[in-house]
């Protein structure tokens, strides 16, 4: 049933249960919001109505109403820009700013802060309230996420991200009144909690209270150290998002510009995590087929996503035998760069610096895991996010959007369509299916577009006929969805051969290190489309057909699943105490 109302004198009809904000959007009337976060594609609707910035006047109602959470009613007369509403909005903003640092110039969210843009939007140029300001120690305990609670405005979007969407359950409002703050239980530093560093809280935070641990300077230092050979790898999802940082349309594929910019920054070799993604598929698919043949340890779970792996270690230690033992592409790349490639070019591993550009903050944590270093030399030395790389490119004075395309360096830069879709939820599974289909049937299977596992939906299922086998597969993105599926598996209610799990809703394209989307889901849809377009446009679309991958098995690793491969490309997992 439709509800009729007027906003600023304009009539509008909306579905019952809609909010005033939604009705206003239909009329193209903008009501400013701050604490509100709504992303239909992930079924997120955070309306704590705590900031009161969206208040409007409703005829006959004594108090102003928060538009984000007030349902419409028949005959309602709403005014969004009455003097009373405008004054109230300004007062709210003024009060928020009275307890917020004014160091915007050096804030990590400078120009991406929704409080800052609100101040601009409301034209606030003087503050009336001068009050006490909260002061907390910054939490830099993890090597992934920085917490600066002086900047927290208590919108609690991070709590929705952490508790409702991801069900990690690390963040909550603590204390009351002026002392209230969002923190882990016991006010522990993040590094001592079961936080998986997915960074969805960083994406959700409208201000600079949550951001990444900045690693740009160590990269600059390495680039300017003549004794070091510095190689860089770029994750699949970076190429379809980094253009946004330079005013390019969301969904632009800027692979060639990305390579060019990295060369201009001074990296000795510009390689591709996609190459290692192809390598991952070789190992993981071998393991999948082996487990299916033996009918043991099923379903096999993907292990590319360090956030998901840490979640499993904390929350499902009894299922720790399920993930593939294959390392993530980032770590496979590091291991190969510092062995095979270092030998090839005659460089000692200690004189090589491997830098990763990742859409992810958890990759910073992953690179620091103990099992990924040998004799004090890490496989991956420094991890920067898509945003940090964009900052470096800007700082170096490079006009990214004007650059000509350049190809990746050889040999760790050649990759396939199967690898580029790793950046989207469903991509890893689809890539594995392409290889499994060929290997199981012994044919060159032509139907390689597995549409059923594509799209932003949180849980997808597909049954794929591979030779005589009916392969049952599932794809999850968002840890809350993963929890639901794993609980069904634990209870014996769901049976699959293979499951892909990514911590971030939508997969890496929506990672915690990607350009801020500010809740605009159309941006994510465009990144998704771009990844599959990149796949279609590549001449080789199956990982096992990558000539550079075939070569490394011939020269160095032997067969997939061989002893040498296991030594370099596989890992183990650790049950973690909560």
């Amino acid at each position, binding site marked *: 049933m439709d509800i009729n109302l007027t906003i600023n004198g304009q009539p509008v009809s909306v579905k019952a249960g809609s909010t005033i904000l939604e009705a206003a959007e239909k009329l193209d009337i903008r009501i400013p919001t701050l604490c509100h976060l709504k992303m239909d594609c992930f079924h997120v609707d955070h309306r704590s109505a705590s900031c009161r910035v969206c208040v409007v006047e409703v005829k006959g109602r004594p108090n102003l109403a928060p538009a984000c959470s007030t349902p419409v009613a028949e005959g309602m007369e709403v005014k969004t820009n009455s003097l009373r509403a405008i004054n109230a909005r300004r007062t709210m903003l003024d009060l928020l700013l009275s307890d917020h640092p004014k160091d915007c110039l050096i804030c990590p969210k400078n120009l991406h802060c929704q409080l800052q843009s609100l101040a601009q939007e409301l034209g606030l140029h003087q503050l009336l309230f001068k009050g006490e300001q909260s002061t907390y120690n910054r939490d830099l305990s993890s090597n992934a996420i920085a917490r600066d609670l002086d900047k927290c405005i208590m919108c609690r979007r991070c709590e929705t991200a*952490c*508790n409702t969407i991801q*069900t*990690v*359950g*690390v*963040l*909550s*409002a*603590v*204390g*009351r009144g002026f002392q209230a703050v969002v*923190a*882990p*239980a*016991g006010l522990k530093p993040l590094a001592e909690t079961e936080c998986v560093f997915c960074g969805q809280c960083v994406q959700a935070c409208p201000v600079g209270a949550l951001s990444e641990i900045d690693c740009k300077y160590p990269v600059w230092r390495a680039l300017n150290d003549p004794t070091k050979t510095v190689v860089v790898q770029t994750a699949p999802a970076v190429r379809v998002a980094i253009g946004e940082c330079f005013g390019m349309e969301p969904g632009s594929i800027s692979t060639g510009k990305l390579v060019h910019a990295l060369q201009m920054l001074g990296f000795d070799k510009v390689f591709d995590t996609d190459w290692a993604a192809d390598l991952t598929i070789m190992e993981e698919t071998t393991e999948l087929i082996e487990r299916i043949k033996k009918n043991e340890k099923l379903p096999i779970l993907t292990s590319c996503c360090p956030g998901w792996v840490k979640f499993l270690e904390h929350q499902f230690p009894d299922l720790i035998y399920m993930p593939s033992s294959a390392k993530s592409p980032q770590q496979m790349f590091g291991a190969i760069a510092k062995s095979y490639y270092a030998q090839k070019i005659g460089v000692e591993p200690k004189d090589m610096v491997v830098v990763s550009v990742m859409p992810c903050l958890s990759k910073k944590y992953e690179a620091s895991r103990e099992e990924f270093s040998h004799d004090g030399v890490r496989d991956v030395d420094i991890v920067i996010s898509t945003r940090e790389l964009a900052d470096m490119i800007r700082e170096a004075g490079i006009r990214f959007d004007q650059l000509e395309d350049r190809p990746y360096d050889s040999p760790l830069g050649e990759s396939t369509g199967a690898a580029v879709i790793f950046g989207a939820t469903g991509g890893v599974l689809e890539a594995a299916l392409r290889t499994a289909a060929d290997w199981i049937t012994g044919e060159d299977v032509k139907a390689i577009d597995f549409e059923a596992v594509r799209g932003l939906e949180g849980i997808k299922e597909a049954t794929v006929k591979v030779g005589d086998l009916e392969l049952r597969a599932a794809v999850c993105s968002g840890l809350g969805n993963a929890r639901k599926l794993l609980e069904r598996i634990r209870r014996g209610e769901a049976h699959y051969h293979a499951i892909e799990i990514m911590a971030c809703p939508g997969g890496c394209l929506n990672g915690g290190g990607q350009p801020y989307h500010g809740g605009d889901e159309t941006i994510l849809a465009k990144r998704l489309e771009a990844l599959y377009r990149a796949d279609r446009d590549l001449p080789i679309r199956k990982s096992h057909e990558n000539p550079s991958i075939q070569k490394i098995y011939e020269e160095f690793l032997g067969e997939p699943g061989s002893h040498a491969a296991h030594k370099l490309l596989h890992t183990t997992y650790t049950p973690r105490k*909560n």
Partner: protein
Amino acid sequence: MSCQCSGGCGAAGDSEKFAELDRFITELLSRGEPPERRRGNLIQILHRAQHIFGYLPEEVQKFVAERLDLPRAEIYGVISFYSYFTDQPVGRYKINVCTGTACFVKGAPKVLDEFKRQLNIREGESTPDGKFFLGALRCVGACSLAPVVMVNERVYGNMTADKVAGILAECTD
């Protein structure tokens, strides 16, 4: 269940305490509420848990979180919101000095300072031997006896700093 919390929630008898809390929660949850309404029992459960353990150490918070399927951070959030709940061990003798208006003007601050001096702790803390807790509260409704001090359930009226030593001496285990 053995307790691994560093705060030391009393070591001996913990398994019985957890069993008691477990029975209480099971009974509450057996009323057949839909799972999404279980969180409504949280405060009642925390009250009982604090009654059983004397305070709410990390292990107890974890236990409640698991039983109610709530994030641990949220349990801590609730505990930190209500001043009644505490995650620190509390002395057996809970000394509370009333600092409401009437007691305040009749000299409660001096009494409070004397307790602090003699116990060598600050307001809101307990002595290291676990014997005394010192707190301040606002108005116990006995203003005619101001200033008032409560030790557990017992009320002392017309308090002065001179009487502090005597009250402490009365507290024998």
